[in-house]
């Protein structure tokens, strides 16, 4: 999974998925052996094990992978307060002056996880716009709400 490695390099993380690697269209999964043993009809499979992310030109990590990386020491991270965190979860970028703390160098094109306390809300890429350093939103957990629009709720 070249794209996953590129993402991990950009975010400064070291991570090796354990299990059977599996691709379903643009999605990348890793599946525990006992779960993989129950796959007998791959043609109709739509999900398996742990979703690592999607490849849409670049690799977009899943919420689960971000959750794991957020708990690890090493990846680039910025911390924000609830107000900035909510704006980020609504798809907005984060300005450098809105960051409470950063671990890692805010270098152009570096990727940073956006943290609210111990929880990862998504990640962005460092850019400079009009002389200001910003973390351009690439993925945030508000994506779940955006996906749910038009999808039926559970009973």
């Amino acid at each position: 999974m070249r794209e996953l490695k590129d993402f991990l390099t950009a975010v400064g993380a070291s991570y090796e998925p354990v299990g059977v690697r599996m691709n379903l269209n643009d999605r990348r999964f890793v599946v525990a052996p006992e779960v993989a043993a129950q796959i007998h009809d791959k043609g109709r499979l739509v999900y398996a094990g742990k979703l690592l992310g999607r490849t849409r030109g670049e690799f977009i990590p899943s919420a689960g992978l971000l959750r794991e990386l957020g708990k690890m020491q090493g990846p680039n991270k910025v911390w924000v307060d609830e107000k900035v965190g909510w704006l980020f979860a609504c798809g907005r970028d984060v300005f450098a002056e809105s960051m409470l703390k950063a671990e890692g160098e805010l270098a152009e094109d570096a990727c940073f996880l956006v943290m609210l306390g111990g929880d990862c809300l998504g990640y962005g890429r460092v850019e400079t716009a009009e002389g200001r350093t910003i973390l351009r939103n690439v993925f945030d957990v508000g994506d779940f709400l955006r996906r749910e629009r038009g999808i039926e709720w559970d009973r």
Partner: protein
Amino acid sequence: MKEIFLERYRRLGHELMGDERTRRAIRINTLLESREAVVGKLEARGAKLTPIPWLRDGLYIEGGESSAGASFEYLLGLYSIQEAAAQYPVEVLAPETGELVLDMCAAPGGKTTQVAAWMGNRGVVVAVDVRRDRLYALENNLERTGVENCVAYCADAGGLDYGGTLFDRILLDAPCSGNYVTDREWFKKRDIGDVEKNAMEQRRLLGTALGQLRQGGTLVYTTCSLEPEEDELNVQWLLENHDVKLSEINGPGCPALTEVFGRSLSPEVAKCRRFWPDETGTQGFFVAKVVKP
């Protein structure tokens, strides 16, 4: 149609108004954090939480800074919005760590993620649904709540290749007529013909489920229909046509009906559970626990 259905419920002993509603409920996702931790976070945001005594992880929720479906905690997968009665079938199924579980009509996945939580992400949940449009919601729910032991298929559960696997437990949350408590337009959309058509499909699915269940395994059959044709009469059909036993469910709601529109059913059917909205404050629901000897 409203009067026809209300009259049927009257004949079954319940004077319903047709405008009963249910309280908003959530289910804590114990895969990611403890119940206590999530409750603490939500209460810190001003939410009033009331434990639902007959559910392991269910709480009624009121108030708070944001709506239950748009909070950090929801987006981070720490809870799901799931009506109280809809949480009960998995409590009855009681899946255990390491088991093989089949969720036959799984989308949009509220119960699938609940099964995975009960199993602690260990063992395997095979989730199947024939409707691709509803499976997108299931996939989102699996990702959001951190489920890692599920394989999901877009297929009719009766036509899937299981590779010879027989399951320890099967949840059949069958497609049904639904009920008016969670759908304000329900009376406008339904007629008795729908009920009979659904009942036939449910029997087909029940037969499929028994074929995939190991000996000694447990099948939980559930609907959110108040119509006996989809509930007690299907269980009666099961008893008459398959070698199965019913396990008694002791919990909320009341024993299932054994007299239905002048027809006497096996006393065994009373081991199943029926949720009447006027009694439980939930939507209508029916749960049967079937064991394959």
